[in-house]
């Protein structure tokens, strides 16, 4: 059990974990400020016989400060967030030449379709409907083309910090670059029915050579 | 829409008043704000679904009978005018004209609901259902010929019946409350030149319903 984010395995983890840490520090400061202030006041100003409270309706300057500081910090965070958001999710952020994999989500399975040797989806040599197994080459941009058959599902790969809903009636693209070979979990994170919790896939990040070998075997029908 | 008209035109005690309107009138304005949001939700959904529809949206007049509804719109506008007349009459203290104009409003409103019922009957007969086209109907033939897109007709039916149905429901509620007021307040002559909040409040509601219809008629029937 780790009291932190999962080990990173994609290029998104850097900025996302960085932002998480930054926000944690900022909010942590605010948290300590407020809570220690409260505790201090509770002890310092507790009722004593003969003591009378200081009669004041406020202080405009103090209020300016504690309006302006959160406002500046929040807008600053928004600007930084937006910078990374556009890099990660922007409509034109998908790198050219990203390797396409079709993700067909249905109650309660993930069906992945890999392009065959031609590297294009929708052709005859596609390796269609591989169930609950996502294999990706390491260090190469991969774009998931998500579609849903029945209800809304959501691709969630914690180590990639990747999440994207698959919505029936929509084609949604979502990309990433895996950085660390290994086997990881992928889950559905949008309630999709009674078997929601079983909607699970194994993500295998492997070297290009291993990936090609696996793909060749899969093309022969040997998926395991 | 019965309004607890206990406070009449003035509150019973001196108070800080935020607006210069008696409670029932203010309450009706507030209620209408909520109605605006309700119809916004329905109309907004209609616009979103229409723009995202998979097939070509049926052109005006192909499915719906526009002249009949235009007449119906005219009826409803007339009823708004007669409502204004009714209010003006009682503001002048004219009980007789109030009775006449109020009744005219009720009749026009009821006629609107009647015509809408006739329209629905006719549309369902032609095969236009909330779920889309009925198989083997007149509209199904038009779909087969390619005049209409079946995919978008399903959405058309969904939005059309929901929007106009809820509008019709509001008109019906208005007519029922007006009939109630007519027999309990108007005919016994309980409204006076000084105290006629009920007419004003039901009139507000009525004008709102009329306004919603003009919007619906424009975006559903004409565009």
């Amino acid at each position: 059990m780790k009291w932190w984010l999962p080990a990173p395995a994609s290029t998104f983890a850097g900025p996302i974990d960085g932002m998480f840490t930054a926000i944690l520090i900022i909010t942590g400061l605010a948290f300590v400020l407020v809570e220690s202030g409260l505790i201090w006041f509770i002890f310092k100003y507790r009722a004593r016989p003969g003591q009378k409270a200081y009669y004041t309706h406020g202080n405009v300057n103090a209020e300016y400060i504690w309006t302006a500081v959160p406002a500046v910090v929040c807008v600053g965070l928004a600007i930084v967030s937006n910078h990374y958001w556009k890099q990660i999710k922007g409509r034109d952020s998908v790198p050219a030449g990203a390797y396409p994999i079709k993700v067909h989500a249905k109650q309660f399975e993930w069906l992945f379709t890999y392009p065959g040797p031609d590297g294009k989806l929708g052709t005859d040599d596609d390796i269609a409907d591989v169930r609950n197994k996502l294999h990706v080459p390491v260090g190469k941009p991969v774009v998931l083309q998500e579609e849903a058959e029945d209800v809304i599902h959501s691709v969630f790969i914690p180590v990639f910090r990747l999440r994207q809903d698959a919505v029936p009636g929509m084609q949604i693209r979502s990309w990433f670059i895996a950085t660390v070979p290994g086997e990881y979990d992928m889950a559905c994170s949008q309630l999709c029915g009674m078997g929601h919790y079983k909607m699970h896939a194994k993500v295998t990040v492997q070297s290009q050579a291993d990936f090609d070998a696996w793909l060749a075997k899969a093309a022969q029908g040997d998926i395991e | 829409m019965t309004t607890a008209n206990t406070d009449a035109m003035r509150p019973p005690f001196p108070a800080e008043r935020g607006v210069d309107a008696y409670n029932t009138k203010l309450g009706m304005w507030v209620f209408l704000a909520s109605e605006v949001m309700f119809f916004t939700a329905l109309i907004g959904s209609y616009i979103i679904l229409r723009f995202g529809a998979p097939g070509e949206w049926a052109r005006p007049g192909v499915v719906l009978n526009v002249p009949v509804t235009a007449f119906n719109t005219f009826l409803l506008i007339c009823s708004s005018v007669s409502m204004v007349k009714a209010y003006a009459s009682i503001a002048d203290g004219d009980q007789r004209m109030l009775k006449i104009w109020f009744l005219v409003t009720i009749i026009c409103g009821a006629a609107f609901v009647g015509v809408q019922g006739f329209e629905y009957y006719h549309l369902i007969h032609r095969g236009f259902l909330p779920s889309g086209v009925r198989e083997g109907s007149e509209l199904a033939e038009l779909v087969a010929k390619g005049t209409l897109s079946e995919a978008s007709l399903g959405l058309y039916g969904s939005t059309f019946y929901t929007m106009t149905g809820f509008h019709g429901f509001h008109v019906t509620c208005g007519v029922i409350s007006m009939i109630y007021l007519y027999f309990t307040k108007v005919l016994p002559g309980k409204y006076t030149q000084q105290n006629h909040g009920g007419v004003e409040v039901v009139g507000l509601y009525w004008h709102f319903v009329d306004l919603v219809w003009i919007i619906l008629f424009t975006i559903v029937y004409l565009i």
Partner: protein
Amino acid sequence: MRTLGIAMMVVAGLAGLGAAGHGRSAQGGGTVTGKVKFTGAKPVMAKIDMSDEATCKAKYPTPPTAETVIVNANGTLENVFVYVKSGLPASYKAPAPSGSVTLDQDGCRYHPHVLGVMVGQTLNIKNSDGILHNIKAMGKKNRPFNVSQPNVTTTPRTFSAEEVMIPLECNVHGWMNAYLGVLPHPFFSVTGADGSFKIAGLPPGTYTIEAWHEKYGVQTATVTVTGTETKTTDFTFAAK
């Protein structure tokens, strides 16, 4: 006289029991039997990837394949549902269904793959795997249901209306499906490993017999039964 009476009652009782037991070994009445043949190239069934479910995978020495079309060694077709579609006399009263039918989920497959029950008869849906299965039955005349079984359990269900066929599926394991025929009488049969079927205990009459296959659709035949004879009717499905 009394002894005779009791004997007759026993015979009648046995007959009733027999009729209820899917018409097998029925006393009296005619029998329709036959084979469902298959012509053409035998389709290749896709392998099922059960690697996700170790419990199920372990139950198969070789990778299991889909059960859509199973052609037997003798060139017949398995899993064809053959039943009396019409022709029963108006006066015919179906015996009360006795006993229950079991649909077993074992190795992430339904056993049997095609089955029939009588209206009102209990179908025990059993989960022998002990992993989550859900059973979704999308009947059109029967009330649809969708229930889950997270561990080893049995869920009883009954069906209220005649319906051929109700598809059953498990959404956790997309390959798992089965078909259920619900009939108001016991005159149905499913072809097995020899491709034959047998419907027994039919009262005299002319019947439309239908054979249903999940991929190749339906075929019908008309058979007239007069006494206790056995009539043979074969069906032939061609590859598509």
